[in-house]
């Protein structure tokens, strides 16, 4: 029996808007953000789990990291997040030029972050440290590497939303950028500082 022969459905009852409808930006971006946080969260949890089995080895390996550079990078990325937030405010006021300016500033700081990160990687490589050196560095490269890849993706997204510059798109792009920010703020203390 085909559907056309069925009784017409009763009129829809009033449904209150769900929480999902009230999310800023786009639902799909929030799906992505939650997925990313799950991955990085699981990665950090695994890192801490393995660390229990070898606290001395992890502490020793951690001393090879450049804490100052990572500290500077934290300031760079948080400032960049602030610029992205300013871009959202400008977009809401319909000031396109200012929006694009702040997005460009946020992206520029993203590039600064990447440059410092590459310098860190180069320094490690010059000491012969790689992803298979020991489990500390396996996690170090996986977590910061995945994060750096997201910084690259974030810069591309900020570029795209400054081309299609509407309050909604800028909000979506900034949401992603804040996620990248947040993940770094979690990675930095756990990988670089935790003793």
């Amino acid at each position, binding site marked *: 029996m*085909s559907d056309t022969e*069925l*009784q017409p459905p009763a009129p829809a009852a009033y449904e209150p808007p769900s929480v999902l409808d009230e999310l800023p930006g786009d639902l*799909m971006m929030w799906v992505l953000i939650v997925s990313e946080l799950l991955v990085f969260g699981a990665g950090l949890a695994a890192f801490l789990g393995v660390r229990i089995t070898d606290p001395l080895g992890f502490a020793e390996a951690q001393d090879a990291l450049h804490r100052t550079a990572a500290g500077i990078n934290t300031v760079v990325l948080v400032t960049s997040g602030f610029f992205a937030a300013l871009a959202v405010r400008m977009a809401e006021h319909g000031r396109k030029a200012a929006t694009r300016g702040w997005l460009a500033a946020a992206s520029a700081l993203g590039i600064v972050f990447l440059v410092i990160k590459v310098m860190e990687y180069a320094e490690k490589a010059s000491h012969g440290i790689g992803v298979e050196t020991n489990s500390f560095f396996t996690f170090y490269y996986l977590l910061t590497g995945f994060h750096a890849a997201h910084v690259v993706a974030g810069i591309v997204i900020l570029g795209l939303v400054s081309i299609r510059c509407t309050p909604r798109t800028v909000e979506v792009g900034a949401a992603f950028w804040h996620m990248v920010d947040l993940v770094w703020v979690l990675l930095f203390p756990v990988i670089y500082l935790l003793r």
Partner: protein
Amino acid sequence: MKYQSQKIALAYMGVALALFLIQVTMGLVIGWIYVSPNFLSELLPFNIGRMLHTNALVVWLITGFMGAAYFLIPEEAEREIHSEKLAYLQLLILVVGTLGAVITYTFNLFEGNILLGKEGREFLEQPLWVKAGIVVAALIFLFNVTMTVLKGRKTAITNILLLGLWGLALLFLFAFYNPGNLALDKQYWWYVVHLWVEGVWELIMASILAYLMLKLTGVDREVVEKWLYVIVAAALFSGILGTGHHYYWIGTPGYWQWIGSIFSSLEIIPFFAMMAFAFVMVWKGRRDHPNKAALLWSLGCATLAFFGAGVWGFLHTLHGVNYYTHGTQITAAHGHLAFFGAYVALNLAIMSYALPILRGRDPYNQVLNMASFWLMAGGMTFMTFTLTFAGTVQTHLQRVMGEYYMDVQDQLWVFYVMRFGSGVAVVLGALLFIYALAMPRREVVGPGPIEQRRLDTDADHVAAE
């Protein structure tokens, strides 16, 4: 049936069901070999039987997907299929290729011949000419359905379905590449069936399930589409890197142990979402669709996929666990329930929905079909538990205590006997399913007292077909 060309699906589903029967029968044969290892050892060695079991499975599932596409795309795109002739030509190529593969495997013809002989690479052992035929058939298929969609209405369901089908065809190309380095060989090998079942097939599954929900529950398309996008995003996010859980012990770098463990743990999410989707749609749905069998298969599909692919997959996906369980009967337990839940049940769901329409036989009673669901699902669930227990014992005896493989197999005998019994139930269920769709022309079972009372008092209630 709104569009004449939907009739193509009938031929595809028929072929798929015939192969389904071959597949489960072979399963029964090799299940008996586990019980009595010398059974047919001269005539049909175990490895050939297993080849037929796994190859037939994949081929009939794909044939079923294609049938489903030919059935639902005209309705979604609101136009006839681009070319019916091409569709039948494509089916002919697939059938000739499949028969060629079956005959080559069974009689071991053309041993060592590059073009005609079996290739010997486990699971990708199809003779080269068959592989080439599959690609030609896939190209014809993609051309045909893509043209139909491009000229017609584009919906989220057809877009996701096409994405999945294109991915399926493109990933098959890795079957032609066989590097000399064994670690690379294995890595590319996983690209075929496992980027299918953990990636693009999930897109096909989600879109067909979405179509069924749309038809069976009458929930708004908008709501269905939102769910569909979320499911697809979760599937691709977790599934692509999640296949890294196959790279733990094949010679790839150690970081795959972490990438694989973390991403594949998330693969449970899309399967949970599909189960939640199916049940929420039914609860929200305002339509009391008479095809209860299709609804039962749809809900069963989402549920068993969650347990088989999601829970049973997670059971042994963390590399610390997999170090012990790898390649034991735990894997077999997961493989059986995952394939049955996610893809067999999906195909049987769309067939239960489409075949009565295609054969112009509605309304008629699908009670036999529903009985076959419980037989097959019950048998498969029992098989999964049996194999899980067998795998647990095997892991302990073989991997922890260090006993010899064959000594352990001897001790697992009782589990293999029980597994054979559950296999009999599955085969009977498959036969009943085919009978239920092919034979009865009118109601087999009249409404019972509860159903009758509902029919009398509830104006919205439609009698089950």
